[in-house]
């Protein structure tokens, strides 16, 4: 029972967060593209592709986590991967002394170490969710014949 409640809390938190984050980026893809370009890690072509597809990937993984049980492990895995990339990008930007906002849809404040710590916390929550959700056997859609 506790495990089920915890699992749903994790799904709602991470799934909701990715849905929100994807939606915010989708509403203003040009600004998101500029934010991505400000990291100075990828070329213009990759920036446009990221701005075009990443918001949708966030939305679909968020939805899958909340609504599509067969896709939950895949969604947790992709979210883990995205958070790893986001965290690495933030660490790289801070290490290079770039004075930029994180482009996470949370405002225009300059990025700080706190943003990296926030990402690491999200990563820990996501890996916990991935582990619990994946280790919990999905009940069969059709009960076994007696």
């Amino acid at each position, binding site marked *: 029972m506790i495990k089920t409640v915890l699992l749903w809390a994790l799904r709602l938190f991470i799934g909701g967060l990715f849905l929100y984050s994807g939606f915010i980026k*989708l509403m203003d*893809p*040009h*600004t998101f*593209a*500029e*934010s991505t*370009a*400000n990291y*100075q890690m990828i070329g*213009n*072509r990759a920036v*446009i*592709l990221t*701005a*075009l*597809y990443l*918001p*949708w*990937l966030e*939305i*679909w*993984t968020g939805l*899958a986590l909340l609504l599509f049980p*067969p*896709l939950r*492990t*895949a*969604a947790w*895995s*992709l979210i883990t991967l995205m958070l790893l990339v986001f965290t690495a990008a933030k660490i790289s930007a801070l290490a290079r*002394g*770039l*004075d*930029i*906002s994180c*482009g996470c849809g949370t405002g*225009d404040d300059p990025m700080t170490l706190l943003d990296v710590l926030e990402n690491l916390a999200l990563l820990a929550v996501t890996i916990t969710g*991935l*582990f619990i959700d*994946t*280790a919990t*056997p999905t009940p069969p859609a059709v009960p076994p014949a007696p």
Partner: protein
Amino acid sequence: MTFVSTLVSSRTLFGILALLGVSLLTGSLSQRVSPDPLPPVHRRGPSLRTELEAAGFPMLTPGEVRTLYQAGTHLFLDARSLPEYHQSHIPGAFPVPIADFDAHFPEIAPILESDSPLIVYCGNPACDQALRLAQRLQDAGYENVSIFPAGFEAWSAADTPEAGQ
């Protein structure tokens, strides 16, 4: 064992491919129906030039910009990112990185009139930040906005004064 075998199962792989596929599909569809689509990924200078011309802003050559700079009649707005601005910029230019327009523009808005002569620029002819900044300014009611499409690289190459940290 259950964790690892589930994680690397064909069902998980299929799920990942399905989520990537549906994201690609919806991203491409949204690009087609969006009233303000992202620029095509294959775009380079010439098509941006076409877009600049279609936008209708006066476009200034490096020589014209140099003359206006010396006359001191225009305000220069730098649409590039803050690190680029701090590295070097046209002396007297104000930073208005288009990615953080709402954060930075209010800092200079009080000194501007709706008919203030403004020149916006970014890095080079392939960047579209100047065009986007000009459009934001036009939307905000500024009527006298010109673009310096050759950008800071052309300014820098012409042995003109620069400022920076």
